[in-house]
């Protein structure tokens, strides 16, 4: 097997010596910036010396205050495409905020009572003259990029049955648009589905949980594979040189009790494949090429559904194609993205009580599992050391930047039978602040190769916004109090801050028009799930919701 992998690696390295560029330039074309998901802009007009002059130049209030604004704005040829939780899509002149067109999705079919329907949307994808997005009732829709008129729509699943919906931005890969869904906690079998951008026709589907006769099926007890979760609910990455799509998969269900899903004797081994894993799929066929399971037999709701950051860095003098991936536990894995080979892992959160450590080959040791009839306190919490909001990578510093929360939870474990589409956590969590700390989060810079923390900016509450890195050696993110700020990417020194008026829970981007660099950030604190669940830990605080995009630039005279 190792020999075969080595051969594959060699073949790929010979065929594709070129390093793909993960930086964005004048546009912000994909959810993660580029398909390599760096969230890094090569624009350097705004830099460490002049960022103090940054001012707001336009704002856009979506008028949809159902939830917060979580969407990553997509910018193509000077036009920004923005989606709201209740599926209103706006095309805006990205220099002025003027509305070019507006689309409103009809009232969606209600989801299954007791299922999981989330009223939020994390972005559109733009390609092939169309704007693609998922809906709360599981449609994938394509609009005309110029007019906003619907071109095609297709039902990915029935919300009345699966208890699932689509909140992630789709990923466009060549002639296909790929989308995952939620539902990993709702007795549902997760999948990714690809459709042709041209006409919406079905291209392929990859089920996270292998069916009868497929390898990995044997890691499921009885019929539990049918409703075992694993929903890949965020957006993946793509390496065009390798033609591989990378995606993180969600937790196994029921979350906090493995009685109905773990094969007897499997404790401590790979289990419930391919949940809580990073997978590489052939972009054309959706066939599994390799996988790396990060949390075998997940019992903490530690989805691995987050972003896959594709970087090329030398290790021992040899250039390697790597994938950096953090799951909810905050353990961050560095893999060879050609073969899936494990290279290293490190924990960004300071408190890590759910395990005692990770072995040199990436195995979890000293697992502290929830137990039926008991309350077991573990850190980090099911909200995640990091939530779905993305980290960033700067090729100039070689560091990844991530907001990390130091919150614990009391876990309970029960055993109930799975019922299709109904919530099936088999236990619950109650968030607790760890004792003897004054700060409960930090924004970190880590070198993923040396696995050393370079700097850390502590913050007294929690951090739940994505990070943006730029060639101006700046790192941007925001906090729940409403401050959107810039740090020096090399030192972590705060260089600029702006009070946006509402909590920050979205993903900022950068783009340029006519030689002027812009920084855009969505604002508004999340009114449900993670944002709302963590807020009561700080009862003296009032983190405000909202749905406004704020765009900054240097004053015309000083740029």
């Amino acid at each position, binding site marked *: 097997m190792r020999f075969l992998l080595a051969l594959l690696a060699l073949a790929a390295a010979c065929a594709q010596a070129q390093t793909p560029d993960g930086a964005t330039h004048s546009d912000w074309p994909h959810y993660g910036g580029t398909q390599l998901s760096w969230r890094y802009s090569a624009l350097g007009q705004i830099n460490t010396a002049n960022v103090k002059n940054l001012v707001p130049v336009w704002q856009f209030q979506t008028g949809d205050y*159902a939830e917060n604004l979580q969407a990553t704005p997509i910018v193509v040829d000077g036009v920004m495409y923005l989606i709201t939780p209740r599926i209103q899509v706006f095309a805006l002149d990205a220099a002025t905020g003027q509305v070019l067109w507006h689309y409103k999705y009809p009232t969606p079919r209600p989801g299954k*009572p007791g299922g*999981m329907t989330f009223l939020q949307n994390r972005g559109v994808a733009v390609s092939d003259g169309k704007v693609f997005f998922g809906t709360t009732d599981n449609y994938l829709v394509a609009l005309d990029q110029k007019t906003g008129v619907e*071109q095609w729509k297709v039902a990915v699943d*029935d919300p009345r049955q699966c208890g699932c919906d689509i909140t992630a931005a789709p990923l466009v890969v060549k002639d296909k648009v790929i989308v995952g869904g939620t539902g990993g906690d709702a007795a549902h079998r997760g999948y990714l589905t690809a459709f042709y951008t041209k006409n919406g026709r*079905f291209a392929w589907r990859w089920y996270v949980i292998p069916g009868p006769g497929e390898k990995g099926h044997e890691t499921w007890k009885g019929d539990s594979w*049918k409703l075992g979760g694993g929903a890949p609910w965020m957006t993946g990455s793509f390496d065009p040189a390798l033609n591989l799509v990378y995606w993180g998969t969600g937790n196994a269900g029921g979350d906090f009790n493995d009685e109905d899903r773990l094969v007897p004797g499997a404790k401590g081994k790979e289990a419930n494949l391919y949940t809580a894993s990073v997978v590489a799929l052939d972009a054309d066929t959706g066939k599994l090429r390799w996988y790396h399971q990060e949390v075998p037999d997940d019992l903490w709701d530690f989805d691995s559904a987050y972003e896959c950051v594709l970087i090329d860095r030398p290790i021992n003098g040899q250039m390697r194609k790597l994938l950096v991936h953090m799951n909810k536990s905050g353990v961050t894995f560095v893999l060879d993205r050609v073969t899936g080979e494990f290279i290293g892992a490190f924990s960004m959160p300071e408190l890590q009580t759910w395990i005692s450590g990770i072995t040199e080959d990436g195995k979890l040791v000293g697992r502290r599992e929830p137990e039926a009839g008991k309350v077991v306190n573990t850190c980090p919490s099911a909200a995640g050391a990091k939530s779905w909001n993305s980290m960033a990578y700067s090729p100039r510093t070689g560091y990844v930047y991530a907001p990390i929360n130091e919150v614990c939870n009391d876990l309970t474990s029960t055993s109930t039978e799975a019922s299709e589409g109904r919530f099936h956590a088999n236990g619950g969590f109650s968030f607790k602040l760890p004792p003897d700390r004054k700060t409960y989060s930090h924004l970190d810079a880590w070198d993923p190769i040396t696995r050393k923390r370079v700097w850390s900016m502590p913050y007294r509450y929690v951090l739940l916004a994505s990070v943006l890195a730029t060639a101006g050696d700046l790192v941007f993110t925001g906090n729940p109090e409403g401050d959107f700020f810039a740090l020096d990417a090399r030192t972590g020194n705060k260089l600029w801050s702006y009070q946006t008026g509402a909590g920050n829970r979205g993903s900022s981007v950068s783009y340029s028009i006519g030689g002027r660099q812009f920084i855009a950030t969505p604002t508004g604190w999340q009114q*449900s799930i993670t944002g709302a*669940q963590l807020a*009561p830990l700080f009862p003296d605080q009032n983190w405000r919701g909202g749905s406004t995009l704020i765009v900054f630039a240097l004053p015309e005279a000083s740029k």
Partner: protein
Amino acid sequence: MKWAFLFLTMTALGWSQSLGEKVFAQSCATGYCHGARGAPAGAPRLAGRGFDQAYITNTVMRGLPGTAMPAFGTTLSRSDLAAVVAYVASLNGITNPSVNLGPGPGAAGPVEKPLSPEAEQGRALFFDAVRGFGRCSTCHEVNGIGISVTTPIANIPADVSALRALSTPDVRTAKLDGEAMPALIVSQGKTRALFYDLTSAPPVLRTVEPSALKVAEGSAWHHASVVGAYNDTELASILAYLREAIKPQ
């Protein structure tokens, strides 16, 4: 069955509260929403808030627009609604709730008779998620579940061979951009034409310029090809399900 009005006075809370607690646990205390017994969680605390009966009823039935609180008036049965309203009322110190759901949409609720074992088997096959897009519910909605690509099933084929031989005169041939495809026309307006492209499952709802679309009668598409993933025994169970689930028009 049509319910114009339902008025329930809960003097003996016993059964309704336990049902209400169950409905609450299944539909409201779902981890990311309210907490168990009305405790705060992802959604706000509901116990001891001083809510009055009318507010609780209205919120449960119609939801809270602009928030994540959905309307349950059309998704739960009348008895479940009455029980969960009474339960939330009890969490707010209302010990003898007089639950008046009023007239409203979905007043009949999904009242379901128990199915026979064969029909139950057919129901599972009709909605079988393991079959992905090869299941009946990819195109048919029955009792609120499934995707309604076609008009509701009204005439149930007499037997499996009739089901396999089912003619589908509504499926025509659309020509678009030089390509012919089996199509179910939804509308052909002055500015837009809508049709389902049935080339592959799931069907794709396309919106096109009317002038770009040419429609011809007949199609090479056959219902037999899409039910092909089911064997005769399975199709017989599905027919048994449809006979029990679908009320004569």
